């Protein structure tokens, strides 16, 4: 501190002060310019997307970059070109169920892993991370074969139903939710539940009235991440859904693939914008947890 104040109180000449403030303002301007470059880089494709959505079908993607005249009707037309509303309902149903199951089961398991030390804790945690890193196709392929075999053996229909898609999303969502809640619970003080136990509460009561209310944010975060994964997924849903249960992501992908040369780009971009909205809104709720979730080990605390 002494050295620092000595520097600050050192007499400076007028010119060197002026030079310093000049270079400081040049640097500030430079930083704003750089920030603008970043913003331009980020927004250009998004604004182009919006612009194409506001073209009519004939000029979208090929004509002038800015729409003239603005074709607002795209946002009405797109609901009838493909069953967009059905896709959205399917996506919501599947993502909410997968997220809820993962968050609730994951909280129970995550509580044990986050709060206690036991013999197989470390191998289990490593297995969780390994699961999270396992390629989706490696899990999907054998599951698909298993589903087909069950269908043939028991003469039931699994593939194309909601249930099987939801279960398959748990392959990602459950390990993630367990990890998320274990990290969250580990960050909560254990004294409160210990006090409840000392005061004669049963383990279940302590969980219900002490742990759960405290851990609720962790539960919500695990739910949102699982929801977003299901909402954004194309891989599992493209194999496991039927036209009736198709999710929004696969619905748009399928439409774009079927009309590879000439999809109605204005409607496709309009629908894409709509499908990005839940992701953007939910993300800003959980933004501060993402680092915790992805790099839990190194940044926890």
């Amino acid at each position, binding site marked *: 501190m002494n050295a620092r104040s000595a520097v600050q109180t050192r007499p400076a000449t007028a010119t060197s002060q002026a030079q310093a403030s000049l270079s400081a303002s040049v640097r500030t301007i430079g930083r704003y310019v750089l920030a603008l470059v970043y913003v331009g880089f980020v927004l250009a494709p998004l604004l*182009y997307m919006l612009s194409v959505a506001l073209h009519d079908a004939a000029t979208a993607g090929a004509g002038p970059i800015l729409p003239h005249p603005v074709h607002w009707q795209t946002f009405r037309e797109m609901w009838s070109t493909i069953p967009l509303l059905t896709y959205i309902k399917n996506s919501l149903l599947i993502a909410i169920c997968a997220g809820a199951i993962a968050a609730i089961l994951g909280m129970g398991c995550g509580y044990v892993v986050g709060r206690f030390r036991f013999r197989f804790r470390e191998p289990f945690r490593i297995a969780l991370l390994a699961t999270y890193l396992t390629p989706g196709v490696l899990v999907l392929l054998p599951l698909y074969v298993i589903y087909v075999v069950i269908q043939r053996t028991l003469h039931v229909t699994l593939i194309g139903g909601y249930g099987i898609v939801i279960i398959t999303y748990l392959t990602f969502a459950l390990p993630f939710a367990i990890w998320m809640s274990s990290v969250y619970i580990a960050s909560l003080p254990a004294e409160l539940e210990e006090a409840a136990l000392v005061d004669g509460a049963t383990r279940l009561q302590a969980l219900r009235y002490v742990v759960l209310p405290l851990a609720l944010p962790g539960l919500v975060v695990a739910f949102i991440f699982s929801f977003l994964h299901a909402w954004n997924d194309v891989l599992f849903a*493209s194999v496991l859904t039927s036209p009736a249960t198709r999710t929004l992501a696969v619905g748009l992908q399928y439409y774009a693939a079927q009309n590879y040369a000439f999809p109605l780009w204005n409607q496709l971009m309009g629908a894409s914008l709509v*499908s990005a909205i839940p992701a953007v809104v939910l993300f800003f709720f959980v933004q501060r947890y993402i680092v915790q979730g992805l790099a839990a080990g190194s940044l926890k605390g």
Partner: protein
Amino acid sequence: MVLRTRAAPPTVSALRQHKRPRNMGPPFLLMVPSLLLLVAIIFIPSLFALYISFTRLNQYTIAHWLNAPFVGLKNYIDGLNPSGPLGGTLLHSIRASLLFSLLTTLFITPLGVGAALLLNGSLRGQRLLRAIVLLPYIIPTFVNALVWRLIFLPHGVATRVLSALGLSTPDSYWLIGGKSFWAMIIADVWAAWPFIYLMTLAALQTISHELYDAAAIDGASGPRAFFSITLPLIWPTLSLALLLSTINHLNNFTLPFVMFGTNPPDPVNVLPLNVYIHSFVIFNFGLGAAMAVVMLIVMLLPAVLYIRATRLGEEGLA
């Protein structure tokens, strides 16, 4: 935190032992539903995938899947042999995947770290800026893929802008041929760099300003301060982010699938896409499984490094 503390002084832990009610082991029952599910939908299927990779299981033999012919390493050899019937398609995909993943990570690192350094200071409108630069990372990958497919259409906006600048001919194609690889890289760089930014920013915010003040007195500022103070302090997080980014790119199926479909040009036929095509378009499950196992092996090194780094970070804090 209390129960997690590993090396607590004996007196303290003895006190806690005393305070803690007896007969209160971990409530393992809470783990049972999750464990059963994990075994059923991940553990058993993974082993089954390994088995499938040694068989000739396809859409015809699946009716009698138990009797699917056991072919040993044939699927692996078929995929990897450049002069085999498949022309070494797996080998091409490994190369494409590694190039894609490493190049993307290489490009997004300076972009992400730069933005984090820029937005860590105090700029007016910082909150808005921070929200805006996250957008590419937040929007779903399938949306990202559709937008860039539109941008790179023949006579699309990318070609028109580039040819107006004299950088390209008006009739160049980005979605077929050699350029498709760069179209995919550009789309992915745009979408992925905010992840590095997010992680770096989090690490930067833990660095105390006094360190820089002290360094300034010693005459270190600018690049010197970055390399001798900032980089060493953010390195644990940044290296973790780079590993995770490498893994995520190796795993990225949605972007090439939505951008190029199931008949992709060779340079973008990355591992997950190739596995998907052989499994769910051609329905050659044996070959698909063999490719998926090879994909897992390719990912093993970054994955092991990631798990080690994650756990080391924890030990450091404990």
